[in-house]
């Protein structure tokens, strides 16, 4: 075997040993890498919620006012709480779509029933309105928890 081949082989062995040594030192010194924070980090979803806060707040406030009104017996007429709720439900439904298909039915859960309740209230049917508003609340509460669970899942795992 020519001498220069031997030299090259020895040099390669030394370099390899150095690389392995350096890699071992670096690997043992590196702190454990925490998982990448991928939950709650979708800027489009964050922006959607932020941009539609006003509709959600108005829906809640109109709902509270309507609950008071139907509790006392409906007194329909222009400017009343149920007319306000009807308008708020339309505004909330108009916020769709969200950036995530999975969220679409959840963020408006119960709103259809609230709308029906508002129409029944405006028509003077307080008993039917009470039922519809209760059904809307019963649909919305568990959907809110589902929204939270979607937001707590890794972003890419939910369409």
């Amino acid at each position: 075997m020519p001498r220069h081949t031997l030299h090259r082989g020895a040099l390669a062995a030394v370099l390899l040993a150095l690389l392995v040594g350096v890699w071992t030192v670096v690997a043992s010194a590196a702190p454990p890498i925490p998982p990448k924070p991928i939950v709650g980090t979708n800027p489009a979803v964050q922006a959607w919620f932020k941009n539609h806060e006003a509709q959600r707040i108005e829906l809640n406030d109109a709902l509270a006012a309507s609950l008071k009104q139907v509790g006392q017996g409906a007194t329909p007429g222009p400017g009343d709480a149920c007319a306000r709720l009807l308008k708020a439900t339309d505004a909330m439904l108009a916020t769709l779509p969200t950036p995530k298909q999975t969220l679409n039915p959840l963020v408006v859960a119960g709103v259809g029933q609230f709308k029906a309740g508002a129409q029944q209230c405006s028509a003077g049917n307080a008993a039917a309105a009470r039922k519809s508003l209760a059904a809307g609340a019963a649909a919305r509460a568990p959907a809110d928890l589902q929204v939270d669970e979607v937001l707590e899942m890794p972003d890419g795992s939910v369409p």
Partner: protein
Amino acid sequence: MPNKMRGRLLAAGSAILVVAALLVYANVSTAAAATSDPVVVVGGDVACSPTDTNYNGGNGVPSYCHSKVTSGLISQINPSNLLMVGDGQYNSGSLSDYQNSYGTTWGQHKAKTNPAVGNHDYGTSGAGGYYSYFGNAASTQQSGCVKACLGYYSFDVGAWHLVNINSECSRFNGGAGCAVGSPQQMWLDKDLAAHSNACTIVFDHRPRWSSNSFASADIAPLVDVMYKYHVDLLLSGHSHAYERFAPQNPSGGSDLNNGIRQFVVGTGGAFFTGFSTIVSTSQVHKSNIFGVLKLTLHSNSYDWSFVADSSTPYNDSGTGSCH
């Protein structure tokens, strides 16, 4: 030395000694007052279910299920009160999980705990596990209530007034639990009007502001009331990270004179969530950490200090004034 001169020297010396003694006394008194000011600890989003794959016999694994460690931090601080800002027990807040997981860690501090109900607690009907576990501490207005309770209450710690609100607004009052005109909103208005303490804390589960998707619009009407009565601090969880905001008005604008400073402390041990677009008023934000917030409540100010789990080292501390 003439007698007259000696007398003057003695008098001057005595005066110096008296002044020095008074100064020492004043310093000692101030120090005593400072050290006797109450300390409260804040944290939420705490314990994994024993059936969680990362539970590991209660010891957790890196990045998951660290309630045992964070409970140890609380023991070291030894606060007068522990403000548990919701979701004490994952995933559904059942009573058996509260007893077997939360109960063996943060449960050691149950006698000094003032809890807030979280969204995951409603994974059990009417948050029945939460209300059964914490008993009257969670429903001081409805003694004996163990399910679907109102969940909001107030009390004093030292010179401070503390208010817990139920931020699971869609769960009560026909789905409008925090709206304008709701019983909770009217109660909060009345409670804050009746307590003229210089310093006030409101704590709950959902933050009004958060640099991710976890900010709650539902509690906005309650934040309006807080601002009206000059509430100093809003302490929340829900976002599993640490975030400190500048004092803000209800619209989220910076308001250093009258604003509400919010801390988000969802770092109690369960798991991590991250950040997205950072809100302009966010002064500090840190994800991938576990730990608790220590607050020292002085008569007209407060000191804060984030106390981190040693596996996720981090520091944030400072002082704020009441308004």
